[in-house]
Structure formats: structure tokens, C-alpha cells
């Protein structure tokens, strides 16, 4: 990966600030844009607002044991006070990959957790790695029920790009032939344990519409493309010294750097796109150096915006010109609207009496998955809500963390209890689709600024009756399935975390067929400025219920291919 120190900054010489392509953001989609554009021969400038993080070298906690941490991985009171949002997802071993809430404030008009990682690699270092394709059930969803605008693409348009991306990143899983959750190109799945295998069998015996499958995950069950394999430590959020999971840092950025075409500039906060009214296109970007606060301009033929959903849309909204008084490419007035997340943490758990003589070895960085089974077709239509949810879950034997909370006592007997594997249990929580709703939105605040003088983002977000009804069904159905499979001590749960907690922000610069009702076209081009491509989560017209990163990567690779073809044809 390029050394940031080697990036020459020369404010006077335009030539040295001119590239074929500029990419804004180095996270999971920006990393793909860098790899694709560099491999296609474009001189590419990759701008990242945070510090550099080099693979392996900058993973300081990756090989530490629990006793190496002063607080033994507990989140401190000071963390909870200073970082009330980010500290809900980090611990002592990963806090350095998350922003400081104090330094990077935003306005929660409604409660919304905006989890961010400002560094090279972004949140690809700390993502959940669950990897699922969307299908036409998802691409046709808006057209079917009228919420949001129709996707301008269908599964056949993106399927080859799913293949292409999966062949590079490596996805562990098993082919199941489920039409609405298409199979990926798979490495071998990571084992189910005995209680999961039992549960899968029991569900199969009792339900025709539900299947328990291996969690599909971008962790490598065997060595792949010079990375991995996963060593089953389950310490992914610290960065993996074995490259056992996919991240920009471990995979796409090294591939981009290898071409010799990549220039990486960390500490570069893009605050606006430069629009040329005569040419009718964007000519470059303006940045503030995070450290020196000096401003610079960079120029390119094409610009890929991959700063993450809320940040990309904020940059567009901040880029005001005569042509775009309401934000770059915002002729439709839709920019900033239809923010989505997935709603999570509604489900159930139960204990299983049996398998007392069995255990497992290793720490698997994934679990089981139950694909969506509501509103797939007429037979599975649910009267209470549209769309659906999938469950992520896992089976395990209770260990000291849980025993501590459920068992009374102290002394030798208690010590023995926490030292032994406890009863088996299965826990499953829904990941549900949120309808695209106009009022769920992001806007730059007119008055409040951050320390770089840029407007704070104001977020409005509320679940509607559809999400609430879906959560109720997810709880009921989880209890039913566990009960039917013979689990005991069933415990429904509904933690109802603030929206944003899934860290699946989507929408706000949606794709669509009609420039009057959407921001991007079917190739992720800004309708009104075709040399600007937006290929992160902001482009999503609907959210599905699947973990979305794979789709961002596939859309990015597809858009890069299209952009280079268009450049060759002199269309851009």
C-alpha cells in the first residue's frame, strides 16, 4: 500500500493534482473502486479522511490475550461518557478503529446510532462479514408494494458481478439452491455444531418454508488469493494478521497498490465536488487536510463517491453551485431522503437438554442463518406487514459470561459451575427490512459546524408500523421454532436498540429509472453529472433484509467496468 508520506502535495502545479480517477473513501466499496480502476490502468487518487492503517503493521491489539488489556475488554465509564454511540459497538481491543463521538459530533433529531471508522479501510476492518446476495424478491420489492422507487436493475444485471467479487473476497458457505437467497461462489462452510445441526434437522422436519443454513461469511475456511485461512480466533475486529477475513486493507488496497497506479492520500476530508457548468460535469474535488486544515483541489475525469451512506450524501448536499443550488445532482429533491437501516435484536433463545457429552473447538466467526420466509409468495404472505426478515443465530454451550448472570452462589461449587461447559442453547435474532420512507433523512445543519467548519449532519429516523409489526412476528416465530424443536426455558427478547445499530445505513442518494424521482441511474451515475458515480450504501432504493456490503462491492465493480468502457468511448 502506498506510503502517505510519499504523496507529493504541490498546490501550484495543476498537473500534479490531476488524475484519471478520484475515489472518495477507502472502505469496503472505495477499496473495490481502487482495485478495479487501478487494474484497468487508471491513474487513481484515493482520498481517505482518516489516518492510514497498514495491513498487519497497524493492528496493535491483534495478538493480545485478555489479560493484556487493563480493563480486560470491559468498556469503561469514561468511554461510555465520551463516546456514547461508538462505545456500544467497540471494546478495548477495537476502539482505535472507531471515531471519537466528541471529535465527530452529529445531531440526532431522533435517536440514531451513526457508527463510523475514519481510517484507511474504514469499517471494512470491523464489519460483521456476513455475505448474502439480494435476489429479484428484493430488486422488485419497491415495484411490487409501491414503497420507494423501482430498482433500475434486476438480479441478472448484478449476478455476474456477485460472482466476480466473491471469487476475489472468498465467502465460506454452502450452496442451498434457495431462489430468493441465491448461492454465492463458496469456499467450504464453517461447521455447524451439534445443537445447530439438530435444530436445522428439527426445523426441516416441521416446516416446509424454513431452512437453517450455515452463516455465509467473508472469512476464509481455506487459504485464498494469498490470504488466510481464518485461524478461528474470532478476534476479527482487531484486524487479522493472517488476512483471514476480507477487508480493504488486507485485499483490495494491496491489489490496487500492486498496479503502480494508486496514490493514497489519508487525512483528506472532501468537502465538495467541483462542478463545471460549461462542461456539464464534475471536474474534481476540494479537500481540507485533516491535520493542517489547508485546502487543496484535485482533478479527474471521473469521481467515485464511496464515503459511506451518510457521508457521501452529505458531501453531495454540501456541494452547492448555480446549477445545483440544493446539492449536487439533486434535481429531484430526493437527495438525503429515504434513509434505511435494518432493524435488529428481536428474537428468542432457548436451552436444549441433551448433547451433554459434546463440545466444540475453536471460535467460529459466524453462526447459523434462517433465510426470509415471510412474503416470499402468495402462500407465505403475512397479513401484518410487508417484506420480511432473516434470522442470524448460533448454538453454543453456556460459559462463564452467562453463568455469572444466571447462577447464584459463590465458593468452590460456584467455581466448578463456571469452569464447566454449561447447557446448550440456541439464540436467534431477526435482521429485518425497513421500508424506504421520505421523512427518514439526513440534512446538513444550517448553523452547527464541526472543527473543520463543515456542517453537522442532522439525522431524522423513525420506525413505522411495518417494522414494529415485523418485530413482533420475528419474536413469536422464533419462540415457535425453538419450541417445536424441543428447546426449553424459552426466552423471547426485544432489545430494540436505536436505529443505526445494525450499521447498515442505506439510501439517501437512490438509484432509479427516472431523474425526477432518483439521484442515480442504473449504473450508479449521478443523473445530471454522469462522470460522478456513487456506489456505496447511499445508492440503495430498498434495503432487503440481507447484510448489504456484498451488494455495494458488486455494484462498485460493475460501475467501474461501465465507467472505463464509457471513458474509452469518450462518453465521459
Amino acid at each position, binding site marked *: 500500500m502506498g506510503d502517505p508520506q510519499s504523496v507529493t502535495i504541490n498546490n501550484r502545479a495543476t498537473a500534479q493534482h490531476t488524475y484519471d480517477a478520484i475515489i472518495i473513501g477507502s472502505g469496503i466499496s472505495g477499496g473495490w473502486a481502487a482495485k478495479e480502476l487501478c487494474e484497468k490502468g487508471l491513474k487513481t487518487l484515493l482520498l481517505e479522511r482518516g489516518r492510514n492503517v497498514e495491513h498487519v503493521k497497524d493492528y496493535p491489539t491483534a495478538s493480545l490475550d485478555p489479560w493484556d488489556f487493563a480493563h480486560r475488554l*470491559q468498556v469503561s465509564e469514561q468511554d461510555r461518557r465520551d463516546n456514547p454511540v461508538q462505545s456500544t459497538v467497540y471494546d478495548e481491543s477495537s476502539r482505535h478503529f472507531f471515531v471519537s463521538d466528541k471529535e465527530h459530533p452529529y445531531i440526532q433529531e431522533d435517536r440514531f446510532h451513526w457508527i463510523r471508522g475514519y481510517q484507511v479501510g474504514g469499517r471494512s476492518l470491523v464489519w460483521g462479514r456476513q455475505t448474502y446476495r439480494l435476489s429479484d424478491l428484493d430488486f422488485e420489492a419497491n415495484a411490487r408494494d409501491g414503497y420507494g422507487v423501482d430498482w433500475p436493475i434486476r438480479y441478472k444485471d448484478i449476478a455476474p458481478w456477485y460472482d466476480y467479487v466473491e471469487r476475489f473476497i472468498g465467502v465460506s458457505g454452502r450452496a442451498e439452491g434457495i431462489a430468493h437467497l441465491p448461492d454465492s461462489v463458496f469456499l467450504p462452510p464453517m461447521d455447524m455444531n451439534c445443537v445447530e445441526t439438530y435444530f436445522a434437522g428439527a426445523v426441516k422436519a416441521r416446516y416446509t418454508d424454513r431452512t437453517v443454513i450455515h452463516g455465509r461469511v467473508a472469512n476464509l475456511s481455506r487459504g485464498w488469493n494469498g490470504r488466510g485461512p481464518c485461524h478461528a480466533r474470532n478476534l476479527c475486529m482487531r484486524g487479522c494478521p493472517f488476512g483471514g477475513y476480507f477487508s480493504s486493507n488486507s485485499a483490495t488496497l494491496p491489489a490496487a497498490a500492486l498496479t503502480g497506479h494508486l496514490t493514497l492520500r489519508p487525512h483528506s476530508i472532501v468537502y465538495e465536488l467541483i462542478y463545471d457548468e460549461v462542461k456539464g460535469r464534475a471536474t474534481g474535488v476540494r479537500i481540507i487536510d485533516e491535520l493542517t486544515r489547508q485546502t487543496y483541489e484535485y482533478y479527474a475525469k471521473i469521481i467515485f463517491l464511496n464515503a459511506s451512506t451518510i457521508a457521501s450524501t452529505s458531501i453531495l448536499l454540501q456541494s452547492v453551485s448555480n446549477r445545483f443550488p440544493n446539492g449536487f445532482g439533486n434535481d429531484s429533491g430526493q437527495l438525503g431522503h429515504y434513509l434505511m437501516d435494518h432493524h435488529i435484536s428481536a428474537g428468542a433463545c432457548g436451552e436444549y437438554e441433551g448433547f451433554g457429552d459434546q463440545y466444540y473447538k475453536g*471460535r467460529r466467526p459466524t453462526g447459523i442463518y434462517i433465510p426470509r420466509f415471510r412474503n416470499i409468495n402468495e402462500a407465505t404472505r403475512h397479513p401484518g406487514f410487508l417484506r420480511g426478515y432473516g434470522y442470524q443465530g448460533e448454538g453454543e454451550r453456556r460459559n*462463564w459470561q452467562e453463568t*455469572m448472570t444466571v447462577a447464584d452462589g459463590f465458593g468452590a461449587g460456584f467455581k466448578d459451575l463456571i469452569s464447566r*461447559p454449561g447447557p446448550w442453547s440456541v439464540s436467534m435474532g431477526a435482521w429485518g427490512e425497513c421500508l424506504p420512507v421520505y421523512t427518514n433523512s439526513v440534512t446538513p445543519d444550517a448553523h452547527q459546524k464541526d472543527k473543520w467548519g463543515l456542517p453537522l449532519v442532522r439525522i431524522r429516523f423513525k420506525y413505522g408500523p411495518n417494522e414494529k409489526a415485523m418485530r413482533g412476528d420475528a419474536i413469536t416465530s422464533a419462540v415457535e421454532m425453538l419450541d417445536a424443536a424441543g428447546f426449553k426455558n424459552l426466552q423471547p427478547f426485544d432489545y430494540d436498540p436505536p436505529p443505526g445499530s445494525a450499521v447498515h445505513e442505506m439510501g439517501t442518494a437512490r438509484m432509479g429509472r427516472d431523474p425526477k424521482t432518483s439521484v442515480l441511474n442504473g449504473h450508479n451515475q449521478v443523473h445530471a453529472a454522469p462522470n460522478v458515480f456513487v456506489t456505496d450504501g447511499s445508492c440503495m432504493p430498498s434495503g432487503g433484509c440481507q447484510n448489504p456490503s456484498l451488494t455495494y462491492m458488486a455494484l462498485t465493480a460493475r460501475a467501474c467496468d461501465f465507467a472505463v468502457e464509457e471513458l474509452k468511448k469518450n462518453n465521459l
Partner: protein
Amino acid sequence: MHRREAIYSIFLGGGATATAFSGYTWVRLYRSPDLSYLDNHATMIDDLAEVIIPRTDTPGAKDAGVGAFIICLVKDISDRRAQNNFIEGLKDLQAYTHDAYGKSFSNLGTATQQQVVARLQQKGRRGSGLAGKIKQAVMGKTFFDTLRDATVIGYCTSRVGATRGLAYDVMPFSYTGSMYLTPNQKAWATK
């Protein structure tokens, strides 16, 4: 504001906690705690932890240096109320053993120490269900619950506790979903 409403508002994350209690209770829970009290009673904390997790055929809390972690946890991890409950608990305990036995906790025999901790548990375990949750939400974590949780965390995440009290697999290499337990097999220390 009625007491019930006040308690309810705490559940909703409301900031009206000050009116939920008598002035004395509020001060007791929210005053700035004298954290140096912990360092000055490190031996007593060590001895309490050893009663929670004693040395058996495997090392105990003292072997694992749990006392120092309890002090660290109360200082850095616990909220203000739990800190005050903990320090108050140590003081009450001291007074109790002097009144009942004429000795400090550390100078009691093992059996008596166990009786004293059993009494603490009876008084201070949160209790299950909604009532327990409400009590903890309003009053903060009790002395006994903080003591026991911190002891368990401190022990299970220590080198000695993780590798000898439990089983620690630093480099599993791969995941094996099902295998038979071996005789006397310990639980994994980490997930």
C-alpha cells in the same frame, strides 16, 4: 412528581433521577466516591474475592491477582452509584464483622468468612425478574453483585484463571463443530 412516575422516568432514560429519592439517598448514591478507600482496603478485597473463587485443585482468586482487577473495575468501569454502593458495602462489612466477631473480615476463619459472604449475598443479590431489574436500575449495582461479577471477570480473564481454571485456546487454527468432551474438560475461556 410521584415516586412511581419518577422511577418510570428513569426507565425511559429521563433525567429526573434527583426527585426519585429522599435527599439523603440521592447524595449517598451520587456523591463523589473516595476511591482511595479501595486501595487502602486491598487486603480485604483480596480476601473477599478468594471466598467467591477459592483455590481448589485449580488456582483461586488470589493466585490470579483478582483483587487488583476488582479495584480497577470499580474505579474505571462501574458507574457512580455502583462505586458508592461498593465502598459503602466495604464499610458496612467492616463494621459488621467488628460488631459480630470483634475482628476484621481478613482475620476471620474461612468458614466464618463464608457465612459473612452468604449474608452479603442474601442482602445484596439483585434478584431475578422485573423487581430485580427495577431495583438495579434505580439503586445501581449492589456491593455483592459488583464484587462477584468483578471476581468472575477478573479470574476468567487472567492468565492463571483462563489457562488453568478454564481452557484457553490461543490459536485454534480451525473450528470443529462437534467433538466429545474429555474427562474433566474445562469450559473455553473465550468465545
